[in-house]
């Protein structure tokens, strides 16, 4: 979503993005004239008249599970967004019985929060797991 019109979205997709991604952008490119939606989400820059790089993860109940907002010059890490969605999906599937510690990726161990885990995280989770 940006403040550009749907016509500009079409030109960008048809003339540039479709050359980077076969078939063009697969998801809807939303137009937010005047930044009305961006203001509600806190990502509209009034001075520049554009939206900053806000990214929101919204679950199937419509609840915001996480967000990240960057100023324009720095791009996002798409894989990190995917990782977070996968982590939230796992937690939701386990109905909150499992948690994903720092550095978690699909396939890596999860934590089962509860009285038995208190003071014992150091036994099952090592600091180098946050960095690999």
């Amino acid at each position, binding site marked *: 979503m*940006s403040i550009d019109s749907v016509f500009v979205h079409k030109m*960008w997709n048809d003339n540039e993005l479709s050359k980077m991604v076969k078939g*063009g952008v697969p998801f809807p490119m939303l137009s937010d004239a005047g930044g009305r939606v961006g203001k509600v989400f806190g990502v509209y820059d009034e001075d520049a008249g554009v939206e900053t790089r*806000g990214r*929101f993860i919204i679950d199937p109940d419509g*609840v*915001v599970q996480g967000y990240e907002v960057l100023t*324009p010059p720095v791009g996002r890490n798409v894989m990190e967004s995917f990782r977070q969605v996968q982590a939230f999906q796992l937690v939701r599937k386990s109905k909150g019985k499992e948690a994903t510690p720092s550095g978690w990726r699909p396939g890596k161990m999860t934590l089962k929060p509860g009285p038995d885990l208190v003071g014992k995280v150091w036994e099952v989770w090592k600091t180098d797991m946050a960095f690999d």
Partner: protein
Amino acid sequence: MGKEMEVGCARPTGGPVGEKVEPEPAQQTLIPKEVSQMIRVGKKAPDFAAPAYHKGKFVSVKLSEYLGKWVLLCFYPGDFTFV
């Protein structure tokens, strides 16, 4: 002749020129200023509808139509920008 603009990642925008118009002094009031809605994790995302371009068609997209699915909502400064 217009001056060539340096185009960064944000779309260049215009605005009013000339003498700065001072806003009228706000009247003293006891009514608290409306607090703008903040997004909070664990709370519902505000619903919205927006026009969109999707696979060759102009459509209208409503966030609440995606209930039951995971949504990644991304804002960005402008079409044809880098990053």
